[in-house]
């Protein structure tokens, strides 16, 4: 740690989070990822900030027209504004990504805490269950589950995809939580708290959980990126979002049929999707580096 850093905070020593934030502020990757994510979140919340065109205003007569003043990415097969459609596509990607990650986060937290803290037969059962879940590749399980959940033709599939990815994607998170809980529970301060009469609940939520959260948050950040990519893949296959939902996966799937005529409708949703996933993976990488004391 540099001398100036010590001078900045003469009174109170920084905690782990403070140290991490101190490192993060200097990381270019972190700022790049943060800026990208803020822009994408704005796009998801208020797409009309970025475009005044209506993504559903499609006129067949301008099919595959090139870029014009209003529509900077041109028009797709249906004659929709590619730029407007791409901007509006951010919303469901973020909704599905965030909520699927939340579901997976809660399940992973419960499994990880229970298996790590109580150990014994409970750990054995839960860990075997996680092994079994890992025996099913994510997308294959998702194909079966999403197909069943989205059987209702009236739904746009957002609920089905979110639940599917949430229910299938928590295993890595649970494993990470379990191992950090096991590491934390053998620390002296936990033994001290237990001797002072702290109950299991207090030990878990006041002492062990806060000290196990860092790596968990990193895993969830990366999982968010993976979930966004999986949503696009499921939508591409035709079991993700559907109906009137605007999604990058659907846009890419539609555009693959016409790439000889027009490349724009394929390229732009692809670029936005890849940048979004990249932003979350970079954020996860940067936060991991900041929280890892070995790298200091």
């Amino acid at each position, binding site marked *: 740690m540099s001398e100036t850093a010590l001078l900045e905070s003469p009174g109170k020593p920084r905690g782990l989070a403070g140290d991490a934030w101190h490192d993060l502020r200097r990381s270019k990757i972190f700022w790049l990822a943060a800026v990208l994510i803020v822009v994408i979140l704005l796009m998801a919340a208020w797409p009309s900030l970025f475009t005044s065109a209506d993504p559903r205003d499609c006129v067949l007569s301008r099919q595959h027209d090139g870029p014009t003043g209003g529509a900077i990415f041109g028009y797709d097969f249906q004659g929709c504004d590619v730029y407007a459609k791409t901007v509006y596509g951010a919303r469901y990607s973020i909704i599905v990504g965030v909520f699927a990650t939340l579901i997976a986060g809660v399940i992973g937290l419960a499994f990880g805490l229970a298996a790590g803290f109580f150990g014994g037969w409970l750990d054995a059962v839960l860990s075997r269950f996680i092994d*079994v879940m890992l025996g*099913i590749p994510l997308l*294959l399980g998702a194909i079966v589950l999403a197909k069943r959940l989205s059987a209702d033709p009236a739904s746009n599939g957002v609920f089905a995809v979110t639940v599917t990815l949430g229910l299938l994607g928590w295993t890595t998170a649970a494993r990470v939580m379990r191992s950090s809980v096991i590491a934390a529970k053998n620390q002296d301060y936990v033994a001290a708290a237990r001797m002072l009469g702290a109950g299991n609940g207090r030990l878990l939520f006041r002492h062990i959980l806060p000290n196990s959260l860092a790596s968990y948050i990193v895993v969830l950040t990366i999982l968010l990126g993976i979930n966004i990519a999986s949503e696009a893949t499921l939508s591409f296959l035709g079991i993700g979002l559907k109906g009137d939902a605007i999604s990058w996966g659907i846009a890419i799937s539609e555009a693959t049929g016409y790439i000889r005529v027009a490349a724009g409708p394929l390229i732009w949703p692809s670029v936005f999707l890849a940048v979004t996933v990249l932003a979350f993976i970079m954020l996860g990488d940067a936060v991991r580096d900041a929280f890892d004391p070995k790298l200091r």
Partner: protein
Amino acid sequence: MFRYIVRRLLQMVLTFFGATFIVYALMFAVQDDPIQALVGEKPITDSQRAALTERYHLGDNFFAQYWYYIKGLLTGDFGTSMTNRKVADMLADAWPVTLRLSVMAIVIAATIAILAGVVSAIRRGSIFDNATLVVTLIVLAMPIVVIAPIAQLVFGIKLGWFPVTAGRDASLWQLLLPAAVLASLVVATELRVTRASVAENLRADYVRTARAKGLTGARVIGVHVLRNSLIPVITLIGVDLGALMSGAIVTEKVFNIPGVGFNLFRGIRTEDGPLVVGFVSVLVIVFLVVNLIVDLLYAALDPRIRYE
């Protein structure tokens, strides 16, 4: 070694029943009327319904039905698709091209990952190392739905270096671009693991001893370091197979390769439930078996694993 194999086989049995049970439960969880789904929009008489219920054991309870499903899987009867073809026959038709594609992908990924991983571990902090880090980050972030159509557009159509699609009897040349696309899914992690593991082994005592004996750099790296560094990379290949299977569905669709993934894609699109479940079940079993083999191989290569 024997005890390890027995333990691993017992685990495999548990995982097999668990994983197939989950797949089966998932597919029956929200099912409303499979008979109506089977006959489609047409009306159905009571006697037809009774005959179908009898034939598919639909009157039995969930666990009995699961038992019939497992029995089918173990005896090679994976069900019949809605087009009235046996799933087993469709698989037999489809797997050779998928196997060729995935073996090519694994070879491409492993070659690039090991070569680039070793070089960047030796020259840590160099331009090459930093460039590889950036490239792997970008490749990691590219979902298969982005990389497959874009590669087809750029290398197939715009530049014209590769054939745009591969058909039924695709040559190795036609499969090269799709295999490279598939390889991109796994190359980044493999490269990073190779780099980390070579970098760690370079600091080991036995490397210093080898150098002190006067061995050439090539022999130290190529024989001493590489043999120990590749062990973790081998386990990755088993895990990566899951990513390859998922990737093959999109890749085969985009490049029009009539393999397992392409059939699965068509099954999803035509709402062919039995086909999808049959294919997914077989892929899950392949995944489990390959991981078992990889784990046994791992134990054979690294004696420490057997005595944990």
